[in-house]
């Protein structure tokens, strides 16, 4: 008998046995159980959503009743809310604000991104970078006008739908509006000059223009951030909401962390959208040359996205810490109360991001000759990533049926319950970051071999750093189970520091070690399986979705307050909706964003199309 025969028989028998057992069990169950009615309540509880609908209906009826009086018009200051038809005010504002923010993030990210690439091109003299930066900037002008339009829409809707609240916010922030508008004006000037002046200015002048554009753009974001962070953690006002100091109102607890968090996230987001654009172009490319270019562009975009993404959790820690510092109540609502399950969803999203990013790197190794020697490591990396992902996504008290509760003897599983706590999750996240970076290192060196004399020692040192960092992370994680809470919370800081230190040390060694490295295998750009490009798009979708979700948390944390602790939300929408509802709205927003971004891609692609008349002559 041939070897393959034996193989087929062996494997077939094993799988067949399992399938048979499964089918047999299922059959037995079907024939054993008389059908019993499922347990279904025939009267749903009165949920806040229903209550809200009922309230707004009642308000409508009341309005109808009072119609004759209102005919002469109601003075503005008496109106607290107006209703948006169909979806309601909250969802309308939510969608418009989110789209505005997504585009704004894109518009702010692309210049940063283009500037970095242009700088690289300038210093390395590689023309490819310059071309790439220019191509990115092409996406800007359409996005910029869309952002402005959405922003204007948002402002109008706020004034119309939430007049009292908007009035208050305008009162507090009145001194910031003029600088904002001026900056906006400057932004458009710099932006168009930067784009249209490509190649027309001397390189240094153009770069200066790029820097100015970014400074102005960041300024716009920082001002806008002050408004929304004020809503979350107001300061500079008295208890009753009277303004004491505008500067204090701007410089509130969450302002700086949000600025930093958004800046980094914008870079990552811009990178991922640029990569998605490249992937889109790659898939529709007709020539090898084009494919090579877009493959490379996608790689750079994704690289920037992932590098920016790695420190994001730390910025997130800072934000969360400031939220706790501002209001323990809000912090606990976030982590332990109504939003605690949202972080399980977040874990799923970030887990998907990590897996996607790593998969892209591994696939990328396929286009490098000589990467074969590293292929065997993939499964171990994947194993670590999957386990960390699973730990991170493990809920502290899972959803259970009564039978399961009885079997577990409580709402915590004796084994899994230990994975659901902060110590385990921090450890998992830090290990995820380390592993992903390891993946990247392997990718980086797959085509090259160091020539320096201390290469072996350098590699050993790098490995040692990784092991030491992982050791610190794990042992601190374990220690977390045995120390009091006050100590435990502090443990995440050394964990993070050890990971960051490891990243820095390893990178430094790597750069030194591969200086003048010998190339063993050429990177064949464009030789990428199509699946990798779909992964880039998947990463972009995931990233957008994640931004939408986290935006909801930040905003939803205020619960029934417009301005936390100052202006109460008394509208029928004052309740906090279910996570299922929120995820649906986020999904719709993400889809809308991608429809619009497709429009942007199409519009910006028009310029490179052949002239209509030229085509006409070709045909004739």
């Amino acid at each position: 008998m041939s070897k393959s025969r034996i193989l087929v028989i062996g494997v077939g028998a094993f799988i067949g046995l399992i399938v048979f057992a499964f089918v047999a069990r299922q059959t037995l169950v079907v024939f054993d159980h008389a059908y019993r009615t499922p347990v279904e309540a025939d009267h749903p509880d009165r949920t806040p959503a229903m209550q809200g609908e009922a309230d707004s209906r009642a308000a409508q009826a009341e309005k109808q009743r009072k119609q004759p009086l209102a005919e002469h018009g109601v003075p503005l200051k008496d109106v607290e809310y107006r209703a948006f038809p169909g979806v309601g005010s909250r969802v309308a504002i939510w969608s418009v604000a989110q789209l505005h923010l997504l585009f704004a993030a894109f518009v702010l990210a692309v210049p940063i991104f283009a500037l970095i690439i242009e700088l690289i091109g300038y210093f390395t003299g590689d023309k490819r970078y310059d071309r790439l930066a220019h191509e990115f900037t092409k996406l800007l002008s359409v996005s910029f006008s869309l952002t402005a339009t959405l922003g204007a829409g948002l402002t109008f809707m706020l004034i119309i739908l939430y007049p009292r609240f908007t009035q208050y916010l305008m009162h507090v922030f009145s001194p910031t509006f003029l600088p904002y508008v001026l900056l906006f004006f400057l932004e458009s000037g710099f932006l168009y000059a930067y784009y249209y002046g490509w190649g027309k200015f001397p390189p240094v002048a153009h770069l200066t223009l790029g820097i100015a554009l970014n400074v102005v753009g960041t300024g716009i974001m920082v001002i806008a951030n002050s408004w929304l962070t004020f809503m979350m953690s107001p300061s500079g006002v008295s208890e009753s909401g009277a303004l004491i100091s505008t500067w204090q109102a701007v410089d509130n607890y969450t302002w700086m962390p949000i600025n930093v968090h958004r800046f980094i996230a914008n870079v990552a987001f811009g990178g991922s959208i640029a990569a998605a654009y490249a992937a889109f172009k790659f898939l529709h490319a007709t020539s090898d040359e084009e494919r090579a270019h877009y493959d490379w562009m996608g790689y750079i975009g994704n690289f920037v996205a992932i590098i920016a993404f790695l420190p994001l959790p730390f910025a997130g820690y800072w934000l969360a810490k400031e939220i706790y510092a501002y209001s323990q109540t809000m912090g606990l609502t976030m982590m332990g109360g109504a939003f605690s399950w949202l972080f399980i969803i977040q874990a799923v999203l970030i887990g998907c991001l990590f897996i996607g990013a790593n998969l892209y790197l591994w696939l990328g190794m396929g286009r490098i000759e000589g990467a074969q020697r590293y292929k065997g490591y993939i499964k171990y990396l994947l194993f670590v990533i999957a386990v960390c992902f699973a730990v991170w996504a493990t809920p502290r008290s899972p959803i259970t049926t009564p039978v399961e509760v009885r079997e577990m003897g409580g709402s915590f599983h004796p084994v899994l319950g230990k994975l659901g706590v902060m110590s385990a999750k921090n450890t998992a996240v830090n290990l995820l970051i380390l592993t992903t970076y390891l993946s990247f290192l392997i990718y980086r060196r797959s085509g090259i071999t160091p020539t320096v004399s201390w290469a072996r020692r350098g590699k050993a040192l790098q490995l040692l750093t990784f092991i030491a960092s992982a050791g610190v992370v794990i042992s601190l994680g374990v220690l977390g189970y045995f120390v009091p809470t006050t100590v435990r919370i502090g443990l995440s800081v050394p964990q993070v520091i050890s990971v960051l230190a490891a990243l820095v040390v390893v990178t430094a060694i790597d750069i030194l070690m591969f200086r003048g490295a010998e190339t063993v295998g050429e990177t064949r750009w464009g030789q990428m399986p199509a699946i990798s490009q779909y992964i880039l798009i998947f990463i972009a979708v995931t990233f957008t979705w994640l931004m939408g979700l986290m935006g909801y948390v930040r905003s939803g944390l205020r619960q029934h307050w417009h301005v936390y602790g100052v202006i109460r939300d008394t509208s029928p929408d004052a309740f906090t909706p279910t996570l299922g509802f929120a995820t649906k709205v986020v999904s719709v927003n993400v889809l809308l964003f991608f429809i619009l971004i497709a429009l942007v891609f199409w519009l910006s692609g028009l310029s490179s199309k052949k002239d209509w008349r030229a085509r006409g002559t070709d045909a004739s």
Partner: protein
Amino acid sequence: MKNAAWKWIVLVAPFVMLLPEPAAAAELELGTDAQQKAGKVVYERYCSQCHGTEGDGKGYAASHLRPRPRDFTSGKFKIRTTPSGALPTDDDLRRVIRDGMPYTTMIGWPNLSDQDVTNVIYYIKTFTKDFKNRDYYAQPIAIPEPPPHDADSAKKGREVYLQMECHRCHGDQGRADGASAPSLVNDAGEPILPADLTKRWTFRGGPARRDIYRTFSTGLNGTPMPSYADSLTDTQRWQLVDYVYSLGAADTPNYAERVVSRSIADDLDMTKGEALFDGAEGAFLPLFGQIVEPGRAFHPNATGIEVKAVHNREHIAFLLRWNDMRADRTGENSPALEAPETTETVEEAASQASSTEESDPFADAVEPEVAGDATDDFFSDDGSAETASGGEAGFSDAVAVQFPAALPDGIRLPYFIFGDPDNPVDIWFADLAKPAPQRFVGRGSRSVAPGNPDGLEMTASYDAGVWSVIFKRKRRQEDAMAIEGGQWYPVAFSVWDGLSGDRGNKRALTRWYYIYVEPAETVGPLRPMAKAAVATFGIEIVLIALIRRKHKNGVSIPPTNP
């Protein structure tokens, strides 16, 4: 004593003469002194608290135990394989020690080593001289393989049952409600209950047909249950066994975990009686004595209650059935009545404790009553003859259904014994001496107040040893918890036996159970099953079509190397 011994000799003599001397019996296995001594250690550690250090059945626990712990000095043993009046074999004793007797505090001692059990048996044998007398030994009765069981045999058994007048104690339908049941006493003059033949699992000797046959063939020494070895042929005995066997549904009680109320479209017509509940799932729930709050019941007569429930859009009805030795339709009853305090009241215990400090704690601090005392009474703990006889001055039978007054919003239910001050309970109460139901609001076992009985209906009937009580109420009523479809509701039950002087806290009760109220309309499984199957099939077809289109020309494998 002398007299009884003489009787045994007469009874046993024929066997002793007829049967060859069993080798084992001839040896008079009384064990060595060392074994008896070892048995004594085990006995005093594990047995003496009930059976007494002297083996006289007057241990610490004895006062509240019904049936009383065995008095080993009497030499009478109930569960044996030997003929009536004879001593048990070692194996008989071993079996009882190992397996225990169901529904008594003698639970069984599976953990003792074989050696310990043997030693204990030797030690038990020292309590009476009878074991030294070869005359009291007899060859065990051979219990044949049970013949096949059939309905015809059971029918004939019924004739034997009536002919032998079993019903005078065990009742016409075997529910232990015979006319002479309340007045039965054992040889020591202690009251004793006839077995409830519909509940095989309570048979002290075991529920199997062989066990029942053994009881008929050997009798239960010391009790009014005689042996029928002489008066009935082997076939007749098996027929009787089959009849008894047919009275009960199963060897085990199969206690339910929940009650399901069936949704019906028709009116809930109380005049239809039990027929109204046809098709509803019966739930048999265990009752236990209320020994938690003062006024305790240590040995309630009712051990289980069968509950059925149906509802339509407007109303919900409950059928409660339990076996009762005698219908007590006179006197009164109420959950608010004061029940007699048992001996372990705070005051008495306090006085006991003070005496402990001064004097010997071994001094008999237990009630000084003696087994066989004329005032001793199966049915009551307070020893008053008046309550035992029930009747005009006494208490009637009663039953109650208990719900939380309002659906608990958390998971904490009201305290299961008539609620607590924070979480009151709604008690539907039927005093079976009165035609109309009552309602009470319980805020604790000592704080039960009458409530508004409007809207609550009740009918009751007693037939051949079983009470059937039907309660009916509107599902939604202003002053009570609304009962909605598709929901679970906590429910508990209590039964008062007038014959035992039950009232107030002294009663049999259940813990909280849950009743599921079926929704009016339910979803069948077929539609979702079909949907899912079709969807899966569709996806498969699309996938196959896609793959086939791509690989039209046989398997073109993607290139392994680009």
